[in-house]
């Protein structure tokens, strides 16, 4: 297994001037859609066993989840309405009794999130053009392609490639960019909120890439 190369994304000036420590980075991994390998399922099971109600409650005071909570407030999201990714995972864990096993990619994302507190998203690398960028949406931009693509309000913070937005920050990913049946290379990206230590941020991407690259 080769160590995936972490690539830094661009944070647009308008955002970087307000949030100097904001980060965007990604790695790409050769992998095809498949069921979750037993090893990854076991790791998720072990994580679920260690994840109790008390931690689900107090997780918001841990440094990394707290940084995302504060960042949510700073960008106009109320974390008590739209849960931060790690808090949403914690609630899911309590409601379902475990981290539900889906596809290998989905489970690798959950693994990285629960291990580090840093959310990671997956895209089909073949459907991403050029470097990723964190910026405000421009007038007339849409999320996805076709008649059912959602209009994006100008100013909404998005992750974009050279062709346009691929995801709303902490929101939906463009359906036409998601990994599908014909995917053979996945791009994993993470957004590091100000105050999140670089170690956790980078570990999230490495952890996710390693889980997908383990066979």
């Amino acid at each position: 297994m080769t160590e995936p190369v972490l690539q830094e994304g661009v944070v647009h000036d308008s955002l970087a001037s307000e949030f100097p420590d904001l980060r965007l980075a990604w790695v790409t991994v050769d992998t095809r859609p498949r069921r979750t390998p037993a090893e990854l399922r076991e790791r998720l099971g072990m994580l679920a066993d260690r994840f109790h109600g008390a931690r689900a409650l107090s997780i918001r005071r841990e440094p990394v989840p707290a940084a995302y909570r504060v960042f949510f407030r700073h960008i106009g999201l109320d974390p008590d309405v739209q849960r931060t990714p790690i808090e949403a995972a914690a609630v899911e864990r309590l409601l379902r009794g475990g981290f539900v096993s889906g596809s290998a990619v989905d489970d690798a994302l959950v693994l990285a999130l629960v291990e580090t507190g840093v959310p990671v998203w997956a895209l089909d690398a073949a459907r991403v053009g050029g470097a990723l960028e964190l910026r405000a949406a421009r007038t007339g931009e849409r999320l996805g392609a076709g008649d059912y693509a959602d209009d994006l309000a100008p100013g909404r913070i998005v992750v974009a490639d050279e062709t346009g937005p691929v995801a709303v920050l902490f929101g939906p990913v463009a359906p036409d960019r998601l990994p599908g049946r014909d995917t053979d290379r996945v791009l994993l990206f993470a957004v590091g909120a100000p105050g999140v230590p670089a170690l956790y941020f980078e570990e999230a991407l490495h952890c996710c890439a390693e889980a997908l690259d383990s066979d």
Partner: protein
Amino acid sequence: MVELTVRRARRDVDEQAARAQLRRQIARLEAQLSALQISGFPYGRVEPAGPGARGPHILGLGELESIRDGLVAGLDDARSRAVERGERQAAARAQLERMLQEPGRHKFVRVASRDLGEPGCGVWHVRPRLGLIGMLAGWWQVKLSSGCPLAS
């Protein structure tokens, strides 16, 4: 013209510094609110301000001030509720102590564990020992009933 540009640039810098200051305040308030919610669980829930209609975006001074003020109000509310709760629990604890010391003077008085700030559905209840005989003889005792009612 140059003076106007300089003045505008200076105002932008001032506003950016003000926004940074508001963000620091929001971060501090958020930390305090989280701590209060955890220490007051399950009673310390703060009502959310409502969904943000615009999604994630760069907030202006007005929006940041509004969020800051909302957090201050939420924190004040949570604190005053915590104080009220603390007073009610102290009163309930004092009542329980009196019941334990002199059960005969507090016949049939009940204090729920929840009123004491304890989890569960237990209720401290002053009851006569041996039923009617104890009632006539003046034998009173404090019993803790336990267990939550079965779900219907």
